[in-house]
């Protein structure tokens, strides 16, 4: 198929439809709403299910019900709406049924704003609902990648009976880029043996997240964990840029990773040996890859559109082999390439000590630059 100019939210919706989506349940919230609106038009046209729920609470539980039938099902929302879905997500994880949720993140906490943010990393990547579970989290950095990861998300969800999040910040949802949509896939005709679709010619199926006996719950937790280990082995995805001889390694995902790439390119042109690792799977995290890089790198710079939520995961991966510095913008502010370039320059000339309080130092830098009115 040829490339066309597509808005992120609509591209994600259409990609899901072409991946064989059977049912969509959602609730309007900016900056995700075009996705829901597209679904409202296209799904009924194709004889598939679209329903605007009365709340995100209802939407996620409609998804839960549909997921129990083994259908390809999804919802989408933005940060405050996703917070409301956490109960349902935990139940879905505990019941081991597959589903996809797209979170087009906005500034927070609270009602925050509708500007692009990556503030949901903790909530999504480390599982915001209660109990032990491990969702897969995919982070696109372009409209094309959002399309590709949306298609992938359904396959991963079904393969591992897992929740898969597509974690896009507001700019991915809102921007328009040339991208190519996949062909329309045929709808699936066979449903898994565990699905509750009516006990015709087989013993009844029960889908529940209840394990009253603690030993049984522990067995379930172990099963989820074993499956998670398999996912960690098979599904880590990331993009590496200029890393072969990099002494400074920038780590950033989504839009922050994309802006960081242009900063890295400029710094490279000035002769600074810097590279970028852009995690695509935030969960499973590219821990091993970062650990390997730590053997060659003088220092790391984590760049995010939040107060350093992925920072801790990078630190864990680096495990004290090199200093890990941080630069972030919060509240819906997207960093400029020049800001990140300045950070790279600083690190090249003045590396931080191994266990410095980099968050404190970063806050001070932000404050100084702000009061100087540089931006």
């Amino acid at each position: 198929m040829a490339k066309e100019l597509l808005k992120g939210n609509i591209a994600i919706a259409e990609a899901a439809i072409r991946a064989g989506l059977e049912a969509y349940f959602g609730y309007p919230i900016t900056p995700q709403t075009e996705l829901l609106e597209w679904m409202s038009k296209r799904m009924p046209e194709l004889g598939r299910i679209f329903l605007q729920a009365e709340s995100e609470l209802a939407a996620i539980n409609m998804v839960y019900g549909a997921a129990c039938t083994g259908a390809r099902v999804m919802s989408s929302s933005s940060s405050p709406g996703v917070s409301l879905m956490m109960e349902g997500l935990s139940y879905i994880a505990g019941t081991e049924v597959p589903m996809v949720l797209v979170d087009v993140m906005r500034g927070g906490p609270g009602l925050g704003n509708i500007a692009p943010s990556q503030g949901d990393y903790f909530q999504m990547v480390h599982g915001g609902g209660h109990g032990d579970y491990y969702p897969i989290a995919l982070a696109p950095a372009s409209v094309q990648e959002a399309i590709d990861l949306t298609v992938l998300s359904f396959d991963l969800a079904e393969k591992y009976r897992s929740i898969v999040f597509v974690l896009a910040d507001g700019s991915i949802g809102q921007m328009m880029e040339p991208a190519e949509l996949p062909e329309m896939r045929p709808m699936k005709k066979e449903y898994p043996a565990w699905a509750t679709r009516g006990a015709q010619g087989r013993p009844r199926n029960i889908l529940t997240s209840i394990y009253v006996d603690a030993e049984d719950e522990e067995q379930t937790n172990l099963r989820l964990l074993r499956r998670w280990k398999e996912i960690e082995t098979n599904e880590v995805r990331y993009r590496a840029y200029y890393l072969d001889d990099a002494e400074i390694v920038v780590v950033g995902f989504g839009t922050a990773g994309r802006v960081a790439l242009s900063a890295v390119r400029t710094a490279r042109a000035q002769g600074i040996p810097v590279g970028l690792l852009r995690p695509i799977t935030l969960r499973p995290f590219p821990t091993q890859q970062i650990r390997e890089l730590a053997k060659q790198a003088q220092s790391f710079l984590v760049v995010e559109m939040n107060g350093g939520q992925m920072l801790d995961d990078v630190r864990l991966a680096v495990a004290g082999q090199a200093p890990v510095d941080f630069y972030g913008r919060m509240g819906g502010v997207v960093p400029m390439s020049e800001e990140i370039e300045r950070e790279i320059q600083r690190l090249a000339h003045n590396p931080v000590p191994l266990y410095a309080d980099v968050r404190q130092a970063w806050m001070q830098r932000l404050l100084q630059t702000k009061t100087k009115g540089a931006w």
Partner: protein
Amino acid sequence: MTTPQVQRQIVYRRPKALNDVPTHYCPGCTHGIAHRLVAEVLDEMGVIEKTIGVASVGCSVFGYNYFECDFVEAPHGRAPAMATGIKRVIPDSIVFTYQGDGDLVSIGMGEITHAAARGENITVVFINNAIYGMTGGQMAPTTLPGQKTTSSQNGRDVKRMGYPIRMSEMLATLDGASYVVRRSLHDPANIRKAKKAIRTAFEVQHQGLGFSLVELLSTCPINWGMSPVEALKWVEEHMVPVYPLGDYKVSPTVAALRIR
């Protein structure tokens, strides 16, 4: 000696839709009666193989152990939303929720109201026992004025704790609701009426006529601090006046329904 010839006939047996296992319900609790009525209806209609039940959070949380059909278990209050998800994907299935009054009237008020408003083609079995049974007898939105519970120990003071909610009456105002009735399980005559209403509700769904709900006044002898017999009497004397039995919504198409 001659033995008299006795003609033996089975007049009562466990419905096929009900599993042959002891339930976890307290002695004298009417949850068991409600289960049996639902199972009898599923048997009579021959729909067990295409039925998916949605259990809720409350004493009936393990309802899925007792019915011989596919079952899922919803988060507290969300059963109508889960039922919606299932029914929309498999429209020719029979989907029912089984919910208590804490589940349906308190935390799940939004989900039940909107399912009814959408005319969702599901059946809701709503057990109103005026209390939170499972968590040990706290006040529910349906608790009667003056009723003592573990969280209204001096009796429900309506000035501070609000008034009981009459759910059937409320839902009946919605255009999407096709069949909304209240029955009681406190004596055999009322149980027979309840059975008939449950049958009608499932027929409404079977024929694609929209949202159906049967509210059943029920007992919780344990948390009411009564014997099973006293509890049945309490339903009749105290609950029925606050929650009058009757048909609150019977849409014209449902009224025309003939059940064989």
